[in-house]
């Protein structure tokens, strides 16, 4: 990576006796879109506030555009923030809200007006909104005004603190698309905090998954999805199956076997093994869409499990089955395409199979 815009090294943050961040490092490149993802309390918002200058790190170094940010207040940083609840000033009109950062920089009034206009165009907001007050706008419009206010002073990094968490699903989708497009157009670095990994995968160039004040994995959406570091990251993406396995390692290679299945021990391809693999609870990550029902003898190489249909859900484009397998705590989840023909009833004994070499080996 060329010189990063944000270079955070070993950031530690303590609140009294509580340690919110245990030495987190993160680099954000110019024009990059990075998402910080994790469950609540994982430290993602704390990290964002440290980048913005609302919190001081207890320890660690932070450089933005190569400059040390120690003691630099939020106002003086080349970052701007879009707040979770937007924080539009209720007593200022849309024009005054957007123009506020420029006014503070003592930009002359005609220029402010011009640039506010330009932001309005960029955000696809109608010019007659200029004189309205935030409360008179819809949720999506408020969102755009908040973005406009954050971008008007041309920051080099835009920080977004779950700005879409309060919106309904449909509006969220369309704003996500707009945000991605906006990022492509203006080339500013974006750092987005979200608890929604799906959102992060849609938008970000790189995703930083956090848990308990630590970074668990940093990687592209493809990495995160196909090569999750461990069960936490894999489980965070969506519904999936973890099948406990015995692992015999030989250097980089590994052979897996399981007493729960009918099938031979299998050699895992090198790129189907997590680089973070440990001895602790090794398991195969088996995606729901890779499992199918079998009757009679399966093809060689497949692993077969015997179980009973616990429940099924028709999801429209697919049907989800939950199969109870003895020896597994959670039912096995499988997604079959289509929902017109239902191959099994609740309570029916079934055989299901998957290809272990297409699964992914990881650990807790």
């Amino acid at each position, binding site marked *: 990576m060329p010189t990063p815009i944000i270079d955070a090294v070993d950031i530690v943050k303590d609140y009294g006796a509580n340690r919110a961040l245990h030495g987190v490092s993160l680099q954000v490149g110019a024009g990059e879109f990075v998402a910080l993802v994790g469950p609540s309390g994982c430290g993602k918002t704390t990290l964002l506030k440290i980048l913005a200058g609302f919190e001081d790190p207890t320890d660690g170094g932070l450089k933005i555009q190569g400059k040390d940010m120690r003691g630099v207040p939020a106002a003086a940083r080349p970052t701007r923030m879009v*707040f*979770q609840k937007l924080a539009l000033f*209720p*007593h200022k009109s849309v024009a005054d809200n957007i123009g506020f*950062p420029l006014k*503070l920089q003592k930009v002359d009034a005609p220029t402010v007006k011009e640039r506010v206009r330009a932001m309005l165009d960029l955000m696809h907001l109608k010019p007659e909104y200029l004189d309205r007050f935030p409360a008179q706008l819809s949720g*999506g419009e408020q969102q755009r005004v908040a973005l406009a206010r*954050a971008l008007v002073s041309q920051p080099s990094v835009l920080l977004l603190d779950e700005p879409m968490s309060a919106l309904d699903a449909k509006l969220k989708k369309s704003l996500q698309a707009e945000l991605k497009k906006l990022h492509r157009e203006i080339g500013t670095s974006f750092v987005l905090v979200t608890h929604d990994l799906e959102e992060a995968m849609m938008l970000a160039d790189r995703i930083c998954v956090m848990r308990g004040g630590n970074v668990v994995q940093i990687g592209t959406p493809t990495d995160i999805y196909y090569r999750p570091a461990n069960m936490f990251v894999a489980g965070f993406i969506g519904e999936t199956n973890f099948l406990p396995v015995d692992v015999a390692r030989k250097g980089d290679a590994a052979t897996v076997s399981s007493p729960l299945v009918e099938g031979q021990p299998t050699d895992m391809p090198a790129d189907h093994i997590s680089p973070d693999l440990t001895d602790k609870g090794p398991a195969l990550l088996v995606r729901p869409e890779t499992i199918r029902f079998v009757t009679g003898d399966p093809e060689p190489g497949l692993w077969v499990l015997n179980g009973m249909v616990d429940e099924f859900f028709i999801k429209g484009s697919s049907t989800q089955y939950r199969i109870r397998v003895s020896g597994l705590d959670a039912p096995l989840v499988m997604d079959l395409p289509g929902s017109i023909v239902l191959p099994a009833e609740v309570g029916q004994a079934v055989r299901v199979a998957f290809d272990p070499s297409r699964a992914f080996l990881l650990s807790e």
Partner: protein
Amino acid sequence: MSDRFKGALVDTMLIGSIVLLLLFFYAPIATLVAFSFSSSRVLSLPMEGFSFEWYGELLAKPDFLPAVTNSAAVAAVSTVFATALGTAGAVAWIRYRFRLQRAFQVVTFAPLLFPQLLLGVVMLLWFSVLGNWLNFSTGLVTVIIGHIVYITPFALVIVAVQVFGFDDTLEDAARDAGANGWQVFREITLPLLWPGIFSAAIFAFLLSWGNFYVSYSLAGTARTLPIFVYSGIAVGSSPIYPALATLNLVPALLLVAFAEFMRRRALKRQSAAVPTA
């Protein structure tokens, strides 16, 4: 009795109670206004005719206008101090945590729980003792101090409600946009607390303007309007007091109308939310 009828009966009784309350509250005020236009010197019913003569007689009273000036001066100065002190105090009450905060809260709230006359008496004793040492006597200045002590807790409570509902991420947002401490205060904190501060100021002014007990204890030989009325009615009733009461309502009405206008304007701006698309 059907449920519906019972419901209607309860509704009527509840609304009736408010109507009765308003009648109760406005009975003496309406009576005063009515009598102020009576042409008879005797304040009894039925009224004989309509006239403005008592207004003339009131204005002709030599100690009337000085009392008005005194009341206005006392109210203006007390309002400024009570509102400023109350606002600073409200922020400290709600937003800050500091050593001795509990004591601060008790001391700044206690005058609200104090019968006014006792508050006046206690301060009078202190001012008399101080006056003996420092050679001054009670007058308008002591009245103003008394009003500040009495009214500041009211102002504090009113502003505190506003501070409590204040969204502090707005201040963070301003800081993020590049504002320094003073700019945050001037552009965000103050305008957003303003409705509370404004109501506190109006409340303070009217409390001071109409205050009798504290003024009575601390005014010495000076006279404010309520003292003027008190000493007048002690001597005997006269139709100039209804006239005074009516005049007294005018500035208060204007103030309240102005406050209501401001409130509506703010309301129109800030909460006429279009339902989320």
